[in-house]
């Protein structure tokens, strides 16, 4: 592809960040060309520099960042343009949607107002003209009842709707290029499918090029025509999507393609002991109407019964807000609930929290965020041995440390890291530490709340392997909470589908995935696994 036929041509782009620890080379001489109307994906793991390319194109690098090289938009170098001239291009000819629909919109202004802004700034439309166009755009991105939604504030909308508003904003001036930086990562799978479908339609209708930045190869395969694979600031490989997926040339691309979770879990025998059981569990947040106060009650979990056998993994799936995390916490009595909870034949729902303490070592939890759930001021060894101090006070210091170090080894961490602090580790390593912290107590039940959602795919695969081997070694029972059906499919032998606080469908994994009965389950499955068919309808 030569320069004449490309709308965006990036040549030898270098992005450096000046940090207190020295200069960080985020992008190291990247070149790429985007043709008019083309959908191109930039794939890579976190820290590969893919987002920084987008930031450089729009001139919104962080203040300590410096870009050099050339970024040609219709043969004009826009990298070194003064702000005023750049302002006439960004938001008008090139626009962007970001990953975080929560924070990318100004929370203090109505969404309609925000769509009007680039219209007024670039085209000089009057208020009423801009409003008319904004409503038209909201209709185009399929926001129901745009007249009413025009006056909404971002916090009154769901993540998917906010991302639609962001797209409306991006389309406002009919740009030649739309850069989408992980636009669906923060969304549920069904919402993700809808947004991708919308983008594909808009690409067809308006003929604009789309640069899609993502770490999700499933999306790339279904959505993009060409792919650039990036690793640590460099383009490792590029070509048509088909070619890259069928005949990857570099090792790195192969590992990426290989990183899709695989395997399956055999169902446990019905005769296995029941470890944890609940009946008619309800969790209600908020309070009943009181004097001068409204009813704030919210029924997070409704009438839920669950039976976890020894060695079993129950996969809990559902969209965000469906109550799956609340259920997980309530099972361990970390959240107040009503209904029966039986652990190894003992009723634990009425036991005072204090006398529950001895049981805590057997009922463990691993959280989604490996950054927030480890104390930043404790060393790895302290973090892992802390539980032993409480639950096994009879152990001497030496025994305790020995046990902790062997657990660290078991989760695949070198014991020599014992004196380091959490911030010195990558996300995957941190999640290993969190797992070690749970496992050192030799639990019987572990609630895993989205344990791999914050991790890159290749790392996710390793962590899933680890969880599997720990399960078979200690015949652990897992409650595996995830919105990612691909992970549930390979990890769980029994699946429960949650919606609005209720279990709407449950059964053996294979059965649920092959013969889902509920429409909701069906749409979850299609959005996760048949993205390609869904998009080919466009």
């Amino acid at each position, binding site marked *: 592809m030569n320069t004449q036929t490309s709308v965006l041509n990036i040549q030898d782009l270098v992005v450096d960040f000046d940090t207190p620890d020295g200069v960080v080379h985020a992008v190291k001489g990247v070149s790429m060309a985007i043709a008019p109307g083309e959908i191109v994906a930039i794939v890579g793991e976190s820290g590969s520099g893919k987002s920084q390319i987008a930031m450089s194109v*729009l*001139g*919104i690098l962080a203040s300590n960042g410096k870009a050099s090289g050339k970024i040609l938009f219709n043969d004009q170098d826009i990298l070194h343009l003064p*702000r005023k001239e*750049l*302002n*006439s*291009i*960004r*938001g*008008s000819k090139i*626009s*962007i949607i*970001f990953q*975080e629909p929560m*924070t*990318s*919109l*100004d*929370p*203090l*202004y*109505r969404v309609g107002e925000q769509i009007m*802004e*680039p219209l007024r*700034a*670039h085209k000089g439309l009057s208020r009423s003209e801009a409003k008319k166009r904004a409503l038209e755009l909201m209709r185009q991105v399929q926001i129901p009842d745009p007249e009413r939604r025009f006056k909404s*504030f971002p*916090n009154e909308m769901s993540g998917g709707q906010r991302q639609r508003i*962001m797209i409306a*904003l991006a389309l406002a001036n009919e740009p030649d290029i739309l850069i989408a930086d992980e636009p669906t990562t923060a969304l549920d799978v069904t919402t993700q499918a809808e947004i991708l479908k919308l983008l594909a339609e808009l690409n067809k209708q308006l003929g604009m090029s789309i640069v899609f930045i993502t770490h999700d190869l499933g999306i790339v395969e279904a959505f993009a025509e060409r792919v650039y694979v990036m690793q640590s600031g460099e383009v490792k490989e590029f070509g048509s999507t088909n070619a890259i997926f069928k005949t990857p040339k570099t090792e790195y691309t192969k590992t990426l393609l290989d990183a899709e979770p695989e395997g399956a879990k055999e169902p446990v025998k019905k005769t296995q002991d029941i470890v944890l059981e609940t009946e008619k569990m309800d969790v209600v947040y908020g309070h009943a109407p009181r004097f*001068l106060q*409204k009813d704030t009650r919210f029924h997070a979990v409704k009438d839920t019964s669950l039976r976890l056998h020894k060695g079993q993994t129950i996969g809990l799936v559902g969209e965000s807000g469906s109550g799956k995390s609340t259920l997980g916490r309530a099972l361990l009595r970390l959240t107040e609930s009503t209904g029966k909870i039986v652990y190894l034949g003992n009723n634990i729902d009425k036991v005072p929290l204090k006398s529950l303490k001895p049981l805590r070592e057997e009922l463990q939890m691993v959280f989604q965020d490996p950054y927030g759930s480890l104390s930043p001021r404790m060393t790895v060894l302290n973090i892992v041995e802390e539980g032993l101090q409480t639950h096994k006070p009879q152990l001497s210091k030496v025994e305790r440390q020995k046990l902790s170090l062997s657990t660290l080894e078991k989760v695949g961490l070198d014991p020599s890291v014992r004196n380091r602090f959490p911030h010195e580790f990558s996300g995957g390593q941190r999640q290993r530490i969190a797992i070690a912290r749970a496992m050192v107590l030799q639990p019987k039940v572990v609630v895993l709340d989205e344990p791999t959602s914050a991790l890159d795919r290749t790392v996710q695969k390793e962590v899933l392997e680890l969880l599997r081997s720990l399960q078979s070694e200690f015949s652990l029972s897992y409650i595996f909470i995830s919105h990612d059906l691909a992970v549930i499919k390979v990890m769980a032998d029994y699946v429960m589908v949650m919606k609005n606080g209720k279990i709407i469908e449950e059964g053996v994994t294979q059965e649920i995935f092959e013969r889902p009965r509920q429409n909701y389950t069906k749409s979850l499955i299609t959005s996760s696994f048949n993205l390609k068919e869904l998009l080919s309808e466009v």
Partner: protein
Amino acid sequence: MLNYAFKRILTIIPTLFAIITLTFFLMRIAPGGPFDEERPLAPAVLENIQASYGLNKPLIEQYFIYIGNLLQGDMGPSFVYRDKRVHEVLAEGLPISITLGGTALLLALIIGVFLGSIAALNQNKKTDVFIVTFATFGITTPNYVIAPILTLIFALTFSILPATGWGSPSQMVLPVVSLALPQIAIVTRLMRGSMLEALKSDHIRTARAYGLPITHVVGKHAMRSALLPVLSYLGPAAAALMTGSIVIEQIFNLPGIGRYFVTSALNRDYTMVMGTVIIVATLVLVFNLIVDLLYTVLDPRVRYD
């Protein structure tokens, strides 16, 4: 919103009532009384005077009489300014104190927000360092130091402004500036911090990525987010100005209510103490209410229903 405002006004009443009750009884626990003088009065005379003010009645009865009068807008006679009622005395000084405090607050807000924004936009450059230095100076220097220095320079040395008195605009300048300076400094620092944070936020990145003019990015989007913490500070600022004005009114010899604060407490002028406490408490409570209501206007996420 109206519903919320109404509810908040309703809660002001019991708060105020609690303050009044507490002050009333605390005042009486304190040793001494309004008629203790260096040469003690003859017991019969003292008894007569106390009887005429109703101070010989049981304390609880006095309390209910006071509350009854208060509900009719009468704060009782002053024990020191014997020919006047307390509310008459306060009504003379209150407009002056409010003008002084209000102007200082407005000044602090306008200059503080402006300087803070300029500093944030020029982070770590010379302008920023200069403004931060000024703000640090302003916060650490109490206004009873600033006031005499300003008087020395502008009134005594250069004779540009009058040193004392109240009435003409030129007489307002020195007291208002002395009172406002520490507040300007605090608002500047607050604004600088919140503006820096606002400029780093994702929605500002969006505004920049969409090529909105810089005046728009800063003046509309960043400014509004950055103002929120400053707005929350206005409640405490109003209280600080109220107490600050006690000193300033003394230094510049202004006929506001500040002077009654100290003198009435020292003289055990029971009714006058009650009067000043009620006025100040009401002002602080109302001001906090106004701030909370303004907050809902500025930040749509805050909804009181």
